[in-house]
C-alpha cells in the first residue's frame, strides 16, 4: 500500500512539473510557486514541529537569513548560487545558536523564544541600513539567467519534492523514530537512552538549511527585499499554519495545507476585498475547532488507517504529573 502511495505522489510531482506547459499566466504561476514554496517550507517546519513536536514560531529567521545571504553576498561579488549555499550554512549556524538556547525550554516557552530570536534578527536588519539596506531595501540577483516565473515555479516544485523525499526517508529511519519518541514523551525517551538534545538540534539544523533555500528563492523572485518582508513574524506563522492546518506530523499534510491556504487566501482577496483577513481568521478558527489534527490528520483518523507510527501527533495528552509540571513546564533537559 505504501508503494501505491509513493507512485501516486511521484505521478503528482510529474504532473506538477508539466504544468508550465499548459499554464501561461504569470499570475497563476506565481500563486502556484507560492503554493509549492510554502509546501516546501511547511514540510521543512514539519520536521521540527510535526515529527519532533517542537513548535517553532520563528522559522522566518532562517528564511530571512537565506534571503539576505543571497542579497548581501552577491553584492560583495560572490556568485548567486554560492551565496545560496553560504546562506544555508549561515542558517545552520543560526539554528545552532537558537536551538541551543531554545531547546532547553518546553511548550509555549520554546515557541516564544523562537519568536524572540526571529524578531531580534528582524529589528537588527531594520536598524542597520548601512549593512543590510534596512527598510530602504537591498537588491537580490536573479538565480536563473532570465527572469521567468516558470523557472521559479519549477524550482519550487523541485524543492518541495526534495524536502518531501527527505521527510519520507527520515520518517522511516531510526532517526525519525527517535524524533517521534521525543515528541510523544521526551523524558521517557531520555530515560531509555535517546540523546534528545542532539537529535532535536540536528533536525533543526536540517530544517533551517532547507528553509534558507526557500528564502533565497523567494527573494530572487522579487528581486528586492526588506526585513519586514522576509523576517516578519507573518512568515513564521504562515509556515506553521500551513503545516498545522494541513496536518503536522503527516507526510502530505503541509502540501495539502499549503494548497488549501494559499489558494483560499488569494480567493478571499478577490472576493472579499477588505474583509479578506477576517474570513481568513474564520477559516483558521473553524479548522482548529473542527479539524483538530489538521486536514490530513483528521481524514486519516476518520478512515482509521492503520499506521506503524502515529501520524496524527496530538491526541489528548495524559494528565501530566502535577508536581513536576510546574518545574518541567519551563525547563527541559
Amino acid at each position: 500500500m505504501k508503494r501505491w502511495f509513493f507512485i501516486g505522489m511521484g505521478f503528482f510531482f510529474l504532473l506538477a512539473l508539466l504544468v508550465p506547459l499548459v499554464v501561461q499566466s504569470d499570475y497563476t504561476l506565481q500563486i502556484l510557486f507560492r503554493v509549492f514554496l510554502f509546501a516546501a517550507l511547511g514540510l521543512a517546519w514539519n520536521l521540527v514541529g510535526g515529527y519532533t513536536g517542537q513548535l517553532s514560531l520563528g522559522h522566518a529567521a532562517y528564511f530571512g537569513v537565506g534571503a539576505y545571504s543571497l542579497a548581501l553576498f552577491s553584492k560583495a561579488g560572490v556568485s548567486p548560487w554560492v551565496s545560496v549555499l553560504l546562506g544555508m550554512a549561515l542558517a545552520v549556524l543560526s539554528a545552532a545558536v537558537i536551538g541551543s538556547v531554545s531547546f532547553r525550554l518546553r511548550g509555549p516557552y520554546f515557541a516564544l523564544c523562537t519568536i524572540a530570536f526571529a524578531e531580534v534578527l528582524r529589528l537588527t536588519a531594520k536598524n542597520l541600513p548601512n549593512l543590510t539596506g534596512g527598510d530602504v531595501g537591498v537588491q537580490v540577483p536573479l538565480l536563473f539567467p532570465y527572469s521567468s516565473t516558470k523557472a521559479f515555479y519549477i524550482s519550487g516544485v523541485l524543492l518541495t519534492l526534495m524536502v518531501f523525499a527527505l521527510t519520507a526517508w527520515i520518517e522511516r529511519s531510526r532517526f525519525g523514530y527517535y524524533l517521534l519518541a521525543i515528541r510523544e514523551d521526551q523524558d521517557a525517551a531520555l530515560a531509555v537512552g535517546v540523546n534528545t538534545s542532539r537529535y532535536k538540534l540536528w533536525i533543526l539544523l536540517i530544517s533551517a538549511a532547507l528553509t534558507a533555500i526557500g528564502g533565497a528563492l523567494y527573494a530572487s523572485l522579487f528581486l528586492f527585499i526588506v526585513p519586514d518582508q522576509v523576517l516578519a513574524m507573518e512568515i513564521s506563522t504562515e509556515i506553521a499554519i500551513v503545516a498545522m492546518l494541513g496536518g503536522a506530523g503527516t507526510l502530505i499534510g503541509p502540501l495539502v495545507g499549503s494548497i488549501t491556504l494559499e489558494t483560499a487566501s488569494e480567493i478571499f482577496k478577490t472576493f472579499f476585498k477588505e474583509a479578506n483577513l477576517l474570513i481568513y481568521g474564520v477559516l483558521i478558527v473553524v479548522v482548529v475547532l473542527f479539524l483538530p489534527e489538521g486536514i490530513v490528520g483528521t481524514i486519516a483518523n476518520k478512515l482509521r488507517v492503520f499506521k506503524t507510527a502515529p501520524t496524527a501527533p496530538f491526541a489528548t495528552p495524559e494528565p501530566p504529573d502535577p508536581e513536576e509540571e510546574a518545574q518541567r513546564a519551563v525547563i527541559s533537559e
Partner: protein
Amino acid sequence: MNWFYSTLQAVLNGLLTGALYGLIAMGMALIFGVMRIVNFAHGAFLMLGMYATYVLFQSTGISPYYGFPLAGAALFVIGYATYLGLLRPIRGQVDFMVILLTMGLALIITDGVQLIFGADYHQISIPLLSKNIRLGSQISINAPWLVSFAIAAVLAVVLYFVVTHTMFGRAARAIAQNRYAAPLMGINVNQVQAISFGIGSAAAGIAGSLLLPVFYLFPEVGNQFKLKSFVMVVLGGMGSIQGAAIAGLVLGVVESLTSLYWGNEWALAVDFVIFILVLSLKPSGIFGSQRA
C-alpha cells in the same frame, strides 16, 4: 550634559509607561497561570477596550479615566464568552492549536473592527493632556500618565488581593497548581477558568482605556503590546501576577533607558534580548520561585 537628570527623567517615564505594561502583563499572567494559554488575541482585546472607551467618550463625553470600568466590563464578558465558546472545547489539544485559534481570533477581531470603524486613526483630546507637573527645571511628568499610573497601581493591588485573599483567587491558584485535583476539591474548574480569562481580558481592556488619551487608536494598535506582554510574563515568572507587574515596570524603564543611551529603534530588540537572556539563564523568571 544633564545626563543625571536625563537618566532620572527616563527612569520616571519608564515607570509611568511600565505601569500600563504591567497591567497588560498581569492579565496575561493570570490567564497563563490558570490555564497555560498563550493568548495571541490579548492585544486585540486591548484594542477593543480602547475602541469601547473611544465610543463612550465620543457619545457621552465621559473621560477614559472615569469610563474605564465600562471597557473592563465589556472585555470581561468578551473574555468569558471566548473562553467558554472557543477555548474550552479545544482544551485537550496541543498548545499550538490553542495559540493558532487565538491568532485566528485576533485576525477576526482586528479586521472586523477595521470594517466597522474604518482603518483611519482616531484620537481624543482631553484638557488633562497639556498639564505637566514640573519638579525643578529638569523633570516633568505629564499628568495623564500619572493618573493612569495611579489607576493601574490600584487595580494591580486589587487584583493581587483578589488572587490571594478571595475564594475565587484560591480556586484559581488551586487550578494553577493542580488542574486535576482541583475539581476533586469541589472547585468548578470551568467557571473559575472562564472568570480568570474574563478578568485577564478585562485587564487588557482597561489598559487600552488608560492608553487612549495619550496615544491613538487604530485597529492594529494592540500588536506591539501583545508581544511585549509575552516578554513580561516570562520575565515575571510563570503565572506570577506580582512578577508580571514588576516586570512591566522593569521593561518600561529598560526601554526608556535604551532610548536614551542607545536609540529608540533598539528598544524593542532589547526587550527580546532580555527575554532570551532570562529564558536561558533563569527560565523560571526573575520572581519565579513561587507559583501563581
